[in-house]
């Protein structure tokens, strides 16, 4: 069976994905494009964004790469404006970007102002910028979708990085209230909390195969999610017509790891 999502459920839709220069963001962008959406790749580093756009074009899709720092309001506004100009509208906004510091462990007493500011700027200032810039276009769309990338750490806290957890917890509150506010406009607002394989995790487990086996025993599916097929596939579903009556939710796309709710 092909790993590609062949159903073009998003034909004619326009999506913008932040942090799409690699990892989960790239997987989501590829999945959206394969489902028929025209996709803007918003990435802080121009070269990685261009790489993702080239991959989409290589598969016959339509993509635009824009260098974007989501912590800068003007960057996000320009990215949305360019998207609308190029593709004629915006139906789907995916805020996936996160700070590179989010993977750094920190004890509470040692959290620096810089670490706090950078992670909250990308995560929560980015959420404000992305949602506000997209709002008039999502409203006009008739099937607007806003999706924020969250984490189980936002639900159960993180002993390794309290800043990351606080930002992701805040995102849960953001999503719930925004869903209630934007529901009357026909816009759904949801979060995806993935457990995805990453290059860093893959490298670690390659060096520590026994730890990998123990770790994966926590997952009913016994594997980490694949950025495109598993995480991207769920995002495509949430952005499709079948999920038009689902809003304010955090969907755990994690192979069954978080069954607590």
């Amino acid at each position, binding site marked *: 069976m092909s790993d590609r999502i062949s159903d073009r459920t998003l034909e004619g839709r326009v999506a913008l994905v932040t942090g799409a220069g690699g990892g989960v963001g790239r997987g989501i962008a590829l999945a959206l494009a394969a489902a028929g959406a025209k996709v803007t790749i918003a990435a802080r580093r121009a070269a990685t964004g261009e790489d993702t756009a080239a991959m989409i074009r290589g598969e016959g899709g339509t993509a635009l790469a824009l260098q974007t720092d989501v912590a800068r309001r003007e960057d996000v506004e320009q990215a949305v404006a360019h998207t609308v100009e190029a593709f004629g509208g915006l139906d789907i906004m995916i805020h996936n970007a996160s700070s590179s510091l989010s993977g750094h462990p920190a004890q509470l007493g040692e959290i620096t102002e810089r670490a706090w500011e950078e992670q909250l700027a990308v995560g929560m200032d980015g959420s404000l910028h992305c949602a506000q810039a997209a709002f008039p276009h999502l409203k006009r769309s008739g099937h607007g979708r806003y999706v924020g990338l969250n984490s189980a750490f936002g639900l159960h806290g993180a002993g390794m990085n309290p800043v990351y957890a606080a930002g992701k917890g805040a995102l849960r509150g953001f999503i719930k*209230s925004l869903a209630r506010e934007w529901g009357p406009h026909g816009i759904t607002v949801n979060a995806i909390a993935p457990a995805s394989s990453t290059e860093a995790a893959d490298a670690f487990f390659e060096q520590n195969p026994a730890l990998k086996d123990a770790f994966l025993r926590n997952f009913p599916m016994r594997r980490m999610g694949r950025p495109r097929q598993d995480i991207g596939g769920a995002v495509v579903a949430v952005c499709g017509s079948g999920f038009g009556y689902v809003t304010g939710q955090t969907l755990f796309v994690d192979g069954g790891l978080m069954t607590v709710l």
Partner: protein
Amino acid sequence: MTRPSNSGHGAAWVIDPGPGPGARLASGLGASGRTVLRISGGPAAAASDLAARFDSRSAIVEALRGAEAQTGAPGLIVYCDVPAECLQPQDFAAIGVGRWHGTFQAALRRSLWVLQAAAEVLAGRPAALVMVGPSLSLVGAAGLVPLSALAEGQRALVKSAARQLGARKLRLNWLALSPAVFAPQLAGAELPQVPELGPPPLPLGRVPDLEHDAAAALDFLGSAAGSALTGATLNLDGGEWMLP
């Protein structure tokens, strides 16, 4: 209402940087037999309140050291930080970056400073810290994105700190109160209803109050009876939601 004395569990500090239910919680905690000190950045409700600055971690450390000089080591620290600006409904599209930073971001960062300062001042001595917030963040509310983002961010911060600081004998929990406690116009989120069956009854027949119910719950969380609880959320709603 008389509660068992917890005077042997150390003083209670009620920290509230701005207006809110801090004064009433402090008043209610007085019934526990503890020495209670309110550490406030807002108007003093009593001459004994300790005025403090909350504009940096070091300022908060200084305030807590001053509090300890007055009361001795605390057994219970209650922290309530919901800026008045967050309680005013506003269209999300109209929220400027300045308001976003000045309310949600500033209060969440202040929450971090308070947790850092408490851990620093306690230095491994046993205590319980309870952060108090509005229960509407659990369900969300239109027009109140900064408020629910703040409260859920605080809740995740408390959980994370609880994971780190348990080994240092500091327990941290979150107490959800009716949003009407913070602003009357925010009276509870609507429960899902079956229209033809009418509104569901209040399980306890009353809405919990601050001076008795909330103070008693805080007292419990700071007592030996609550010694196995950390990182928990207690929704003090009289059984309205019954979730999770």
